[in-house]
């Protein structure tokens, strides 16, 4: 008899092992790789609650204020009685006003005023200014792969031991100036915090959350193969578990056909004729907006394990992803013209960590005459292709495969730097060849 993959049991096993190492292990650090939608936030909240319950003073380090506020809200939701400190900056509006409604959350710009609380949460940037305090016994470092090594250097003396959690496939941290002179050094300040940590402490236990609860069965294999070739994961749901259906039948137009293709298969590629265009290609932007308009107009309903019946596909369950801010602005304007308001439109950077039912993506290489390292970065494509629970529709000009062939990666190689996989060029080809099986050609 073949073993049946039980995602719930697999995930529980991984979580138990992580908590065991965190609460009772002997190592100073534990690293957890979490692919998209694998329950990273749930893990962080649970680890925080268990550490607090065990009477271990805990600091939590996140990367952005939004992430910090989100964690505070989640903790309070799980345990409203837990004394939590929100350390914030002294800028105007330093935290989400929703925190003011939580009686057990104390807010302060001074770490000293939060001393003694079970959990204190802030951004890495704010923690870096905390000096002259007794170190915490435990820390949780969230989004550790998006944290730079130098940011960890600034805060690591604040804790004895730490749990590092993050997604290795998303966008790498970057520096706005060259940092080649430190390439190959174990503590290269521009590398990710996890890279440095593991280079100096290779014996630390490394775990992996093996199940994506977000990505549907149609998406997990592609995303796993293309972006996590050496740390594969599975979808938590099977092929029949999720369904996307539309009340209004297709009118035969390109947008409607690609919506149907994506509803059926989980992926859709709306391909416009090849042409070199500036980033804010008006035809492609308009096509994106039309797809969104039709998604809303056709009375979509999403069926999943989360609810008993179909749930209407509303504007807040749809997102548009782009590579550049001006593209996002152009799409917003085009949507406004079509009377669409509530749909999230943002760049890959800002969509990291978010989740929607359907995403509509402007392919980063669409219409480009050249392929730069920025556009080939795997993290960008990975973020854009892994935000959806049901379907992802990519809008693109034809000719990207030829463009990739004209720009083979000829990256410089730094001695001593661990090769990061996958290669952007290779991953782009892989995604493109998969998408081409779900192609709808359209001439607007």
């Amino acid at each position, binding site marked *: 008899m073949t073993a049946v993959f039980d995602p719930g049991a697999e995930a529980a096993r991984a979580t138990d092992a992580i908590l065991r190492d965190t609460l009772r292990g002997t190592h*100073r*650090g534990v690293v957890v790789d979490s692919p998209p939608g694998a329950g990273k936030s749930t893990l962080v909240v649970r680890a925080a609650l268990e550490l607090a319950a065990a009477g271990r003073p805990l600091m939590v380090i996140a990367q952005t204020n939004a992430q910090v506020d989100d964690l505070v809200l989640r903790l309070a939701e799980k345990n409203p009685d837990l004394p939590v400190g929100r350390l914030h900056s002294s800028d105007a*509006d330093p935290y989400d006003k929703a925190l003011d409604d939580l009686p057990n959350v104390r807010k302060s710009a001074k770490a000293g005023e939060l001393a003694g609380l079970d959990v204190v949460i802030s951004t890495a*940037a704010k923690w*870096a*200014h905390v*000096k*002259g305090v007794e170190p915490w016994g435990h820390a949780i470092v969230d989004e550790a792969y998006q944290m730079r*090594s*130098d940011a*960890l*250097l*600034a805060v*690591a*003396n604040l804790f004895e031991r730490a749990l590092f959690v993050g997604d290795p496939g998303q966008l790498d941290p970057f*520096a*706005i*100036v*060259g*940092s080649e*002179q*430190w390439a190959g*050094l*174990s*503590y*290269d*300040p*521009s590398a990710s*915090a996890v890279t*440095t*940590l593991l280079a*100096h*402490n290779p014996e630390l236990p490394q775990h992996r959350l093996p199940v994506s609860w977000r990505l549907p069965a149609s998406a997990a294999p592609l995303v796993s193969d293309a972006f996590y070739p050496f740390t594969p994961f599975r979808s938590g749901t099977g092929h029949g578990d999720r369904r996307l259906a539309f009340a209004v039948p297709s009118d035969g137009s390109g947008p409607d056909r690609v919506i149907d293709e994506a509803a059926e298969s989980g992926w859709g590629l709306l391909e416009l004729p090849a042409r070199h265009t500036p980033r804010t290609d008006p035809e492609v932007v308009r096509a994106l907006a039309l797809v969104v308009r039709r998604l809303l107009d056709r009375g979509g309903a999403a069926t999943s394990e989360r609810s008993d019946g179909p749930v209407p596909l509303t504007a807040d369950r749809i997102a548009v992803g782009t590579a550049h*801010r*001006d593209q996002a*602005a152009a799409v917003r304007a085009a949507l406004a013209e079509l009377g669409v308001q509530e749909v999230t439109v943002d760049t890959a950077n800002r969509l990291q960590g978010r989740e929607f039912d359907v995403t509509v993506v402007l392919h980063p290489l669409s219409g480009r005459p050249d392929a730069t390292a920025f556009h080939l970065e795997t993290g960008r494509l990975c973020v854009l292709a892994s935000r959806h629970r049901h379907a992802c529709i990519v809008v693109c000009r034809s000719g990207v495969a030829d463009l990739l062939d004209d720009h083979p990666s000829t990256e410089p190689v730094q001695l001593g730097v661990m090769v990061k996989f996958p290669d952007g060029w290779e991953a782009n080809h892989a995604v493109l060849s998969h998408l081409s099986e779900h192609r709808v050609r359209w001439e607007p």
Partner: protein
Amino acid sequence: MSLISTLARLEAVETGRAQPVATVRHRHLTGRPLVCVPLTTAGEAGAPLGALVGTDRDAPRLLVVPQPRDRDLRFAFLAELADVVLPYIDSYAADVEAAERSETDPETGKRVKVEVELCADAPQLIVPSRAGIDFVRLLGRSMRFRRTAEQDPEAPHPAPPRVPLLGRWLTHYGERARVPGSALLLALTDVLSRHWATGQSSLEDQHLGALLAWIDPPEGESGAGAALRAELLRDGRGQLVCPPAGPATDPAFDNKLLAPAIERYDRARTALAAAEDGVEADDRLGELTAAEQHIRELVASRTRPTWDAVWQGLDLLRALPEGGHAADRWTRDRWSFTGHRDRVLAGEPPQPRRDDAVTAANKLATREREQARLEAQEALDDPLVMAGRRLAGEAFAGEVTDVVMAYGEGRRPVPRPLVTVRTDDRPQPAERARVYRSLGGRPQAAEFVGHEDDGALVVLRIVDKMGRGKEPEPGSLPEKGDRVCFTLFEHEQRGGAKLPDPEETPWTHGGPPGDGSPPPDAVTEEDVL
């Protein structure tokens, strides 16, 4: 590259001469820079062939290594280079002014002002191209660990003390050159390209001769034609008429001229060593001198055109008025110079081969801060640079159409006036985002309130620099009809968080670095071919 610079390049193609991409000079130039045009030997790292150095454009000092593979001749060259460069550096070390610096008091841990010395000016080193900066670093690296006879009486090939000292200075200058906006060590091609766009690619702009041909073509000739000749024209002997700015030489020069000359020199040396009496030795010494002289002439012939080109380039740059903030950045360079002077005086060891974790992180933080500072300052100093930021939606300029007095919500009413600006620019600030304008050289902040009239009007709420009273101080508010320019980026940079001291490097970064007076480079006979 912004579309504005792209247009400049295309206009350069059309007009046949370079077009401005800056209206002011964004780097400080001192009155007496030291120019260095080095040449290196192909195939070998850190084997100089020669150099032209000096502060007088009419009287460069020619230094030559007649046999670059000969270790003793190489060291003699480095010692001679130190004889030129160190007195130049020293001439700036003594002229100081009093200044204040914030330091952490070791006892109280509080930040206190300390009276310190700041050198009134600093030595400025100019090389022709970016490869020249790399070569300065390479020379610094090859010299700073050299042992003197005093340090290590047993060392083979002991170096005179000024050689490792020069190595430390060149290393400092090479590192400083990585700081955005610094001007202690400049590559002329970089500075020229910052101010002019040519009708060729930025890759081709790294050829100093071609770059200058576009910017300042000979009378009656197009920049394109002159650049092509500078790049490719060869004389009857197959030699480039405009030799590369170095430090690498043209292979045709190596093979056809230099190799035979070095062979002749080697033969003359061998013959001299084999001389059996004084008369024979005198004759053979004459031949050796002649052979050496020939190599000196060859090196001079390859470096002198570049030397002249560097000074021509400096003239072109000096003709531009200096940008308002260039002096501010030069003051930072003076601090950098003074700091290294003090470290040398204090007897600190040479810079290590590779930075420790804390030093690397501090350098990266400094450079990121200086990059942001440079971008802001260049835009504030130069309308053409600001135009690029406006095109990118990072700034907007226009006319004030309305000023409405309003007050904040606090207990004490503070002025929070609303200012409406009509602009053709299309900024995309987030809700409540901060924008800044320069008010007498200091940034005044405002909050973005909203767009009106389909984006043509931007409504802002001014939030600071209006004094302490209920009414804004006179002159602190723009008035209806004023031209204003607001930026979405900050004008001044905040200092980052202080990192731990190296001896407190955390376990995540390998703990404190080991004790490190770095060992000298291994010297083996195999080094010399």
